[in-house]
């Protein structure tokens, strides 16, 4: 559902917005603000939620395979399926 939001914009930004409308990128101010806000929201979500985790996943591993097995022994001293099932009980 759409909702109307009142917001004060700087004169400078409005001039630039009007220029974009003149250039034909948007048909009016309302459409311009709606599209720009929507695109920026998606960018921010990506920057805040996706990029940091992705960076971590792309970083070079700090653990060798053998070291991960040592950690695995500590984390899973018994049957893994029981440990996983325990979490599903919550």
């Amino acid at each position, binding site marked *: 559902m759409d909702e109307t939001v009142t917001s004060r914009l700087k004169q400078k930004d409005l001039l630039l917005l009007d220029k974009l409308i003149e250039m034909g990128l948007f048909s009016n101010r309302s459409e311009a603000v709606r599209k720009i806000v929507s695109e920026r929201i998606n960018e921010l979500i990506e920057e805040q939620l996706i990029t940091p985790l992705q960076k*971590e*996943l792309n970083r070079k*591993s*700090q*653990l060798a*395979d053998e*070291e*991960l*097995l040592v*950690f*695995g*022994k*500590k*984390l*899973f*001293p*018994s*049957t*893994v*399926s029981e*440990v*996983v*099932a325990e*979490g*599903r*009980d919550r």
Partner: protein
Amino acid sequence: MKRIYLDTNILLTLWAPLDPLFQSCLKIRKAIEENEINAFFSGLGLAEVASVVERQKRKFSIKDPRESTLAIEFIKRIVLIKNLDVIDDFSVYKIDILDNFINISSSHWLCIDVAKKIGLKTLDNLHIANILSIQNKTGKDVDYFVTNDKEILLKANLIKKRYDFSVVASDNLISIEGL
């Protein structure tokens, strides 16, 4: 080539040498990497890996400067298993319930049916729903749901009857398929 969907416990066992089913899970990974079977895992599974690892870390209070990266390390190793398809179905169903339209992901919608017919825990049901979703998305049947979870294995016959795929433990898959 047989198509399998892996439960989270199968992949985590690859790094749990004390688990009695460690060797069978290693054999499954080898079969996947050598293209003897076509294997699927899910985004849900990756999220579960992170949760399980973080929970176990707290439980055993592992004191090591590198422990903060453990969940990421497990996820990375899983994603890098050669030929393993990590797949989620992003299709959304628009459902009309007494003239109220809801948008719901295919897996969640199918999960309601699974819960009604099979009645396992939420995440177990979601994994089964993921299999149905993968079948719809790829247009091909999944032959086995491989899990070492006792409760799911107890319902293997019912799942086979309702959804027509087999639920097997890792060591059973090895013997059935001769891996």
